[in-house]
């Protein structure tokens, strides 16, 4: 039996918001990207923004920075999250509540609040991190003038904020693995480490793939951290991400046409990466 009218009556408000604030803007964004938006009124010039995109060194710099962060941060974070989840799931662990709090608490901390703390902690002269580094006799790091250090700082900050979030998802995946799988393996004297690599990891593959996709999309849109921690993508443009570049083009210079083209490029990249990820995860080996 079909209930077209009732169903759409229930769906209507949701779909209305979706059409008004997602579908139309996405279409409109494409139209805007075909216009010169730095003149008033906007002028139709289909090639202008798109050809600029492929030759703009600032765009490629932001793309490069984003990809570097992506390639380092996402695998490190997912590995850490997996370790956290596996350990939190262990029946041998004492004070589970405390550990859970430590790893999961960053999930509720807002971008602005934690960015401010990290900015202060990594201050060159008075930051607690440099004081601790100096305390153990190592050379202090100028986190905000050294491009590599600034990148490392962004990567550490994002990892701190999101590892627990992924650990929650992976933990849910772990808890859905039936006990008897492990019991059989333990009876056969398969070591815990081998059990992890040959039972747990393969069974977690879809969950980890889901985390990877979410994390990649998240990292591609990285904005608040380089905006607030490294002060608008500094030093120079060393930590300028695609998100920050987009913000600068769209809202700093008011060049919405070009920003729309950049947004499409980010979306295309995200879709491609996600598809590759999902394909890899689905592939039965």
């Amino acid at each position: 039996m079909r209930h077209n009218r009732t169903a759409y009556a229930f769906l209507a408000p949701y779909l209305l918001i979706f059409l008004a604030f997602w579908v139309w803007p996405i279409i409109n964004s494409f139209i805007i990207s075909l216009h010169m938006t730095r003149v008033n009124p906007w002028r139709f010039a289909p090639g202008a923004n798109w050809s600029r995109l492929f030759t703009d060194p600032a765009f490629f710099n932001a793309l490069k920075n984003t990809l570097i962060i992506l390639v380092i941060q996402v695998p490190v974070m997912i590995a850490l999250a997996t370790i956290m989840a596996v350990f939190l799931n262990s029946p041998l662990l004492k004070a589970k509540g405390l550990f859970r709090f430590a790893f999961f608490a960053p999930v509720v901390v807002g971008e602005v609040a934690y960015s401010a703390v990290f900015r202060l902690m990594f201050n060159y002269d008075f930051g607690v991190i440099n004081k601790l580094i100096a305390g153990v006799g190592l050379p202090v790091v100028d986190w905000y003038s050294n491009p590599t250090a600034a990148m490392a700082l962004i990567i550490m900050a994002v990892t701190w904020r999101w590892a627990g979030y992924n650990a929650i998802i992976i933990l849910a995946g772990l808890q859905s693995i039936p006990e008897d799988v492990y019991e059989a393996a333990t009876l056969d004297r398969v070591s815990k480490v081998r059990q992890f690599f040959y039972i747990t990891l393969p069974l977690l593959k879809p969950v980890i793939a889901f985390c990877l996709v979410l994390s990649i999309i998240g990292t591609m849109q990285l904005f608040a951290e380089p905006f607030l921690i490294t002060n608008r993508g500094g030093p120079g443009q060393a930590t300028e991400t695609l998100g920050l570049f987009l913000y600068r083009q769209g809202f700093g210079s008011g060049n919405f046409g070009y920003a729309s083209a950049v947004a499409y490029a980010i979306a295309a990249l995200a879709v491609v990466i996600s598809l590759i990820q999902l394909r890899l995860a689905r592939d039965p080996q």
Partner: protein
Amino acid sequence: MTRSGQNRLRSFTLHALLAPLAVVWLFPLWMMAVFSTMPDHGIFSSDVVLWFGTSFTDNVRNLQADTDFMRALTVSVFVGVVYTVLSVMLTSMAGWALARYRFLGKTAVLGIILGTITLPYFVVVIPQFVMVARDFKLANTWFALIVPPLFNSLGVLFMRQSFSMMPPDLFDAARVEGVKEWRIFLYVALPLARPTIAALSIILFLHSWNNYLWPLLISSDRSMFTAPVALGSLVGLTKVSWGGIMAGAVLLTGPMLVVFLLLQRHFIAGISAGAVK
């Protein structure tokens, strides 16, 4: 080695690995709390300070002098509450439709909702801004802060899953007795979905509470700043009280940590819902 000896060694290794990681993970939150209680000359001194000072109220006062943070907190609470209520209404209605009825275009609607999960928000935010601020001149309004972020795909999937796990006989019996569909939804299905709604509400409120980019773009008028925007506007200024900023960070984070501690189960259910489809 005996079985229990092996377990003890394993347990020791486990804790030895995990404890330092937990300390590192707690450290930024600890420092946030410590900084919020220290005067600026204490924060910018050459001593390592890891324990609380007594300047929290002074810092709050400094923060209030730098930006009207109490006003911003009020804006954030109001926006968060209205956003959460509206979003729960929209997503539970849509989730109900997708769980309960067969209708033309159902696969397409589901496919689109799933598809938007992998769509970066950045594609939408510029045209959203152009539409709301430029075309409709609605910048700095409650409407602009609350309505455009309402679309939410994970929430619908979460509600749909909850409704489809309920036995359909329950609803069919009511229908046979001539109860209207919207009454079945309102008085039978929704009360049964209370745990899911609780988990969803927490996640939605948190999302709104911490939302930064959209309110940053859409509110240029200080009186319509949300708390994260107000706090973010101070980061990077030269003449600003960092103790004050940290006090603001604590005021933003503290309540959420308390909610997290009290309602951990709902929190975790809400987040891990993404994993179970």
